[in-house]
């Protein structure tokens, strides 16, 4: 009997073909998500006689989706960690209200105002995280409490009247567009970055003696991404340029998707959501990561508050009402599992686009708002059903 830890190659089938087939599976899932989105777009395009797909409307659509997208990024972390955050809409509203008060009533400068708002959101996130992680109160309860409390604080400080902003810079964050030249420049930078990243990954694999995909695959990948990037910028430039909020969303997506997929932090969050006990016994500090996840959610709620208040150029007492539901819906449409451990930020953004497209398209059609709600609710259920039934196969 062989008593050594024998090295037998036959048992490890790490063949390239096998890896590729699992990649293709993941792609099929992406395609169903995207095809739901495209389906919605085609329907609206036909009904509106092409108005939906105009450059102007697409720019507006992207801007509309930005608030939900920012919230959804944070929500993905929270849900993946096995929790929920119902407070993000109220926190968004409160941050907007405080921003308007600081800036227009107390005459704070732009930079101090922004720093204060982001700190406020972060501290509120830490408050939620503390109760969930260290006091073991279920997140649903803690953030439901936060949902009520912070909306209450907002009503108190604004006396339920809307407060307009006087700073053109804050307004610009919500409303302005990147100059067309700068847009092109960004596109070029993005394409170059893609090329560098794809080929750096190749050389790293070579360094560790791993299988390197054929060159044509890498080139194809680069081309595909480049077409997407350039196409997007050209469409946006066809109107006024890329909206600033969209730039913010793209930057946040890049950063937080990196955190989710490539860092120890992200790995630990997915582990905690997947099996908290196994994660704890593997030496992961569940409490600390839970706290951090809520801090991220609070931070992003503040950013969303800044964007929304800038776009409306005023803070209102009902700003961000129901925004938590849109964010949760975006995550769920994007395949995030409510039991934790599974979820992806890019997919959640597709979910946010689905929600925003419905809002936008039905507004174009002057659909009454009660119909809008009914249809959004139905689409939510259908989208998740489609996603689940394709996953099974």
């Amino acid at each position: 009997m062989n008593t050594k830890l024998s090295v037998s190659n036959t048992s490890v089938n790490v063949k390239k073909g096998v890896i590729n087939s699992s990649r293709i599976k993941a792609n099929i899932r992406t395609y169903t998500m995207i095809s739901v989105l495209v389906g919605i777009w085609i329907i609206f395009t036909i009904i509106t006689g092409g108005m939906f797909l105009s450059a102007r409307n697409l720019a507006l659509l992207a801007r509309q989706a930005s608030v939900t997208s920012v919230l959804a990024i944070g929500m993905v972390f929270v849900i993946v960690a096995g929790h929920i955050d119902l407070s993000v809409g109220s926190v968004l509203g409160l941050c907007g209200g405080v921003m308007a008060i600081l800036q227009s009533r107390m005459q704070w400068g732009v930079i101090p105002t922004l720093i204060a708002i982001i700190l406020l959101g972060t501290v509120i996130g830490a408050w939620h995280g503390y109760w969930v992680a260290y006091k073991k109160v279920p997140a649903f309860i803690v953030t439901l409490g936060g949902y009520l409390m912070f909306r209450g604080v907002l009503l108190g400080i604004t006396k339920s009247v809307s407060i307009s902003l006087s700073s053109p810079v804050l307004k610009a964050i919500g409303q302005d567009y990147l100059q067309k030249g700068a847009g092109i420049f960004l596109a070029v930078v993005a394409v170059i970055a893609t090329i560098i990243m794809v080929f750096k990954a190749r050389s790293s694999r070579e360094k560790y003696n791993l299988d390197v995909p054929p060159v044509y695959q890498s080139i194809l990948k680069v081309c595909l991404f480049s077409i997407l990037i350039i196409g997007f910028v050209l469409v946006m430039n066809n109107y006024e340029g890329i909206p600033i909020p969209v730039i913010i969303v793209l930057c946040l997506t890049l950063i937080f998707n990196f955190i989710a997929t490539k860092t120890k932090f992200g790995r630990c969050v997915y582990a905690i959501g997947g099996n908290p006990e196994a994660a704890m016994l593997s030496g992961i500090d569940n409490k600390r990561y839970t706290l951090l996840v809520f801090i991220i959610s609070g931070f992003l709620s503040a950013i969303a508050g800044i964007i929304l208040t800038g776009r409306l150029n005023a803070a209102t007492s009902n700003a961000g009402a129901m925004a938590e539901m849109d964010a949760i819906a975006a995550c769920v449409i994007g395949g995030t599992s409510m039991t934790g451990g599974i979820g992806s930020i890019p997919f959640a953004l597709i979910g946010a686009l689905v929600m925003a497209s419905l809002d936008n398209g039905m507004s174009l059609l002057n659909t009454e708002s009660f119909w809008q709600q009914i249809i959004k609710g139905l689409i939510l259920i259908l989208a998740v059903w489609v996603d689940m039934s394709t996953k099974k196969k």
Partner: protein
Amino acid sequence: MEQYILEMKNITKEFPGVKALDNVTFSVRKGEIHALCGENGAGKSTLMKVLGGVYPYGTYKGDIYIDNEVMKFQNVKQSENAGISIIYQEFALVKELDVGENVYLGKLPGKAGIVDWDMLYYETSKFLKELGMDINPHTKIKDLGVGQQQLVEVAKALSKNAKILVLDEPSAALTESEVQTLMGILRELKKKGVTCIYISHKLGEVFDIADRVTILRDGKSIGTFDIKDINEDKVISLMVGRELTERFPREEHTAGEVVMEVRGLNVYDPEGTDSLVINNASFQIRKGEILGIAGLMGAGRTELVTSIFGGYAGKKSGEIFIDGRKVEINKPADAIKNGLGLVSEDRKRYGLILQQSVTTNTTLASIDKICDWGVINSNKEYLNTSNYVKELRIKTPNLRTKVNNLSGGNQQKVVLAKWLMTKPKILFLDEPTRGIDVGAKFEIYNIMNELVRQGVAIVMISSELPEILGMSDRILVMCEGSIKAEFNYRDATQEKIMYYATGGH
């Protein structure tokens, strides 16, 4: 012509890419206890799922006859109506409901949707009496021990008028005495004409109770034997397809210096009471030895190791020394830093993140080793994982496969890989071979020997006495939270261990 109550003829069941059952033939005589043996992945569970209607007629090839009549089960209900009742390894009991409600779950008696509770509890207590169980049918399932829960499952099967009772690994979670009770009940049922199919890894039980045994290997039926015409070694060799010269690869280890010493460890009940789960435990572990911890279920063995590891909820007092230095271990991260590893008893609950990949699970306890400045280096991750996959011979289609899709033995190896990657000095193994097949067990024993040769100290908890006797260098026996005895393996016998484990002095 023999009288068969059940015949499964030429059953073939294919999953994408795998032939789980290949032309299997399986015949059971009326009123016998028929054991079904095979390694994990041999097709036992698949065969029973075909019988139970989990895989409906048409998704497999072949025919099922009950009392010489062809059966075409479309669902579980039809199979139950034909008198087949399957008790799976994971119980189908609702913990918050009581015994009576569970026995009649899905078929509550009554009229017009109004439950006849009196009849339900009356009938339930009749079944419980039949099984010799002295419990109140109003007791909630969560307040029962695993052994009693198992018997509630049997009562549930009886209430469905089962002609054929299938037990899938019934003894995996039971203590020795609970197993004996179960055996007694099965013999009683046999007298009443109930036919029983008994799936087990524990050959001792099989030879104790079965009339005949059928062996499956790699989805094929190898043969059916009268139990008196065959012995344990023969069954094992048919299961694994090779002669096992020994079940335990005993090696002489030379124990080195003391790596860890526990002095006066007290552990309190996490529910806040002052009762002690571990009472004044003191022991030493030496470099390069296997220390076995024997005891009955509830003796505090798991609590002992998880509290040392910092993963137990209750308070503790006492001192722990590693390499002669006193250490404070308050959480698992501290333990890992001090060179401890813990393969816990329930791998699905405490060891693995089932819906995540082999890679993620393998690197989970040593993420820092694959990170540069907090960023995961996916190539380091891949190389580390594939090394352990090779070394431990983990059978997986690829490294991204979700561990959910691996067999029990391979899942256990992934847990081992996770801890080996932390390069532990002391490795606690809590029931390391529970629920895995003979071949994988043998591989895990070999891995243990190899680790000891490399100087790792191993502490192994096991409920299987042959395993304790076959692998340990020294043996501690626990009972009611205290260490009652210590033996060198040469002096230990099953009888001596059981004497102290059952509270002898």
